[in-house]
């Protein structure tokens, strides 16, 4: 229900761009097009219809995945996006795995061994991780691994293999190599965030009575920490992580432009430069759709993890 409202609102915002941001006709035609031709084109594209009719048409098409033709390239937007989507999704996926796989264990470690030298080092480093802007870390990585050491490629996806309509970089050596720098760049911020969140939650849980009672029952630390404490830690962590994964996809833009990664973000940046409104609108709607879907998955996960929520609806 809420998701439908969110999607509707985003659709409305995306659509209003058509009306209020620049005049599309100006961007489609050359300077020497006569006024007569411009009016004809306007009529043919339905730009003179009332607002509601236009919006209705837009939403109906959007639901079917049709966002019209790109003003600049004269190809369906849906095709362009479908072509770019695998790149972004693969990048976001790898970054998500990285930030979870490293962030959670580090968070647990720093919570359990709060006073060790290593935890303090990790915490200090993470502060740097949180405060550095993405483009800077990206450029630093390129400088170090790409230019100085010449170990890793600094732009593009490398060789890709087509699996049906999905082009993947996972199956070639150069594709995997190209993934490393951008995914680290993208993951760094999320990683430190997840780590700090897990640490804070874990410290909170370790203070609770049931942890103390578990210790008083003589359970070994390993069981107390990982079976009882960690599982309880994850309940709130899931929410934040879910939201963050959405933003990984959405904010891959910066990383993609730094690494010239041929994903949706780069497409979007170019579209802004060209005032290619159909692409911008489609991108907005799609990102909103991802957010809504991820939130739904988070809710379902919640349900699976926490028995208290299940009981309420029995």
């Amino acid at each position: 229900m809420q998701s439908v409202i969110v999607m509707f609102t985003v659709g409305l915002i995306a659509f209003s761009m058509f009306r209020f941001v620049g005049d599309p006709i100006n961007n489609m035609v050359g300077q020497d097009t006569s006024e007569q031709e411009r009016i004809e084109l306007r009529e043919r594209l339905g730009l003179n219809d009332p607002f509601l009719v236009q919006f209705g048409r837009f939403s109906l098409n959007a639901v079917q995945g049709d966002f019209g033709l790109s003003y600049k390239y004269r190809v369906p937007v849906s095709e362009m996006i479908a072509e770019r989507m695998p790149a972004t999704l693969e990048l976001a996926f790898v970054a998500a795995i990285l930030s979870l796989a490293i962030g959670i264990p580090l968070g647990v470690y720093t919570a359990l061994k709060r006073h060790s030298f290593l935890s303090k080092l990790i915490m200090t480093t993470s502060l740097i991780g949180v405060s550095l802007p993405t483009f800077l870390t990206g450029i630093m990585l390129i400088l170090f691994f790409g230019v100085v050491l010449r170990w890793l490629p600094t732009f593009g996806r490398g060789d890709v293999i087509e699996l049906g309509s999905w082009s993947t970089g996972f199956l070639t050596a150069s594709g995997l190599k190209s993934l490393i720098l951008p995914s680290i760049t993208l993951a760094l911020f999320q990683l430190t965030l997840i780590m700090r969140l897990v640490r804070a939650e874990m410290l909170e849980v370790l203070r609770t009575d049931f942890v103390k009672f578990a210790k008083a029952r003589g359970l070994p630390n390993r069981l107390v920490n990982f079976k009882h404490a960690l599982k309880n830690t994850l309940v709130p962590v899931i929410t934040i992580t879910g939201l963050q994964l959405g933003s990984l996809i959405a904010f891959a833009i910066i990383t993609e432009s730094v690494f010239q990664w041929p994903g949706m973000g780069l497409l979007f940046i170019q579209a802004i430069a060209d005032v290619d409104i159909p692409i911008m609108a489609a991108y907005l709607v799609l990102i909103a759709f991802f957010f809504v879907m991820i939130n739904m998955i988070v809710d379902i996960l919640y349900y699976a993890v926490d028995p208290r929520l299940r009981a309420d609806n029995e």
Partner: protein
Amino acid sequence: MELLDIKNLQIEFPSRRGTVVAVKGVNLTVRPGEVLGVVGESGAGKSTIGNAVIGLLDPPGEMSGGEVFLKGEKINDLSSEEKRKIRGRRIGMIFQDPLTSLDPLQTIEQQLVETIELHLRLGKKKSQERAVDLLRQVGIDDPEIRIKNYPHQFSGGMRQRVVIALALCAEPEVIIADEPTTALDVSIQAQILELMRKLCREKQVGMLIITHDMGVIADITDRVAVMYQGNLVEEGTTQKILGDPDHPYTKSLISAVPRADVRLRRFPMVDYIEKEEDRKVLLDISTHWLGQGRDFGKIEGPLISVKDLVMTFVTKQAFLKKNRQSFNAVDSVSFDIKQGEVFGIVGESGSGKSTIARLIAGLYKPASGSVFFGETDLTKVGSEREMDVFRKQMQMIFQDPFSSLNGRMRVMDIVAEPIRFHKLASSNREVETIVTDLLEHVGLGRQAAVRFPHEFSGGQRQRISIARALATRPRFLICDEPTSALDVSIQAQILNLLKDLQEELGLTMLFISHDLPVIRQMCDRVGVMKKGKLVEVAETEALFTDPQASYTQELLSLMPKLDFLSHEGLDVEAS
């Protein structure tokens, strides 16, 4: 031979400002089948002893001296791994709050089987059988089915039974119970205590029970040790300590326990407990600020009259009205409060006592029924401004002194706020004079005004709440469990203060409590509530000597017996 022998135990908490010695050279012994009570007020170091024995002192606390023997074997200098093997296996532990003692994400079975497997290595099948058997022993019906449930599906009392089952599951030799019934209602407390007593006898387990509640001590213990500021001040059989204490601290502690058998004019204040500024001079109401402006509209008959009050809470939200589920927290309740009387409401948690208080104060809107303040039906008062007239005459004191005061305001502003709001003083200077006067009046002293609430103890904060309530010169005071978060000696002080104020100002009071002895000390008439319904209303004396409703009789019979408590130095009111 002693089962548990604690010798010369010393516990210290080093901190930046120097070391705090929490426990100073304490000696205790527990024999098989015996229940030893450790009693004392908060900060006396009781819980620290329990934690030290099982090796779970919270850092930076450390055992700086003394020895602990379990069956003659020295256990305090074992490695942490060996201590862990003793925990649960040989020493079981029960904590205060059953609502938070269990892992909310695991079933009872997972937690029981895990512990049994760890200590007894019976194999999965046998462990499950044992788990079911344990639940049956602690009195949980249908254990085969209930064992699959999660902790939140049990009530507080049931959860404490599960906790006891967990503590017992490896047949420990000693059980340490830290305030095991403090979070529970009287009737459930009685059941749990009886269960613990029985298990102790049957299995010849030694039990160390840590509590601040004299009722629990009287009910279950064989011997008592009294702690005061880290020292063991007195130890002896329960009869001896409660009936004929030697040490002045014990005497003062016992005199401060509210009792159900006699009504006192005032709680005796022995110097040993925190110095109270005894206000021997009663106020001259005719000249004092509190006495002025009391020309309320004359009211004939009862001051407060509640008629068929119903309050409904929605328990399950739904879009359609017919799908919603709700229950009546207050179910057609009617009673009157006469002018100048203290009316008590007593009942167990969830009986709707606090809801009634909030309905009268106008914090909730009732589903139906009416609340008359004199002639006016408060539920029909339309505008906020009209309501303010009544709010000024009606003030409330809440249970939790920690959350009912705004931590970012100075005490001066907290107490001054109602005076300013109702424009009871003409100038700022006058407001300040009144506030300092009020603070002195409740025994805090004028220096309190510039400080913040967190600088005060629980009892002092409750005094601030009382000063704030008095600041509007009310004629009607609602006290919702005003002392249940406080230690007995502080409780005695606060109850004394309320009694004095009531006497001086002729206040009418609604006094809500779950504690029958407190009710007996404070109230003229009492209403007994059960599940939202008022089951009996009677004069206090009559209710305690000759209860009519069966529920009242039950409540009274469950009350811990304190008959043999020392009567030394009490100021008994002739009835």
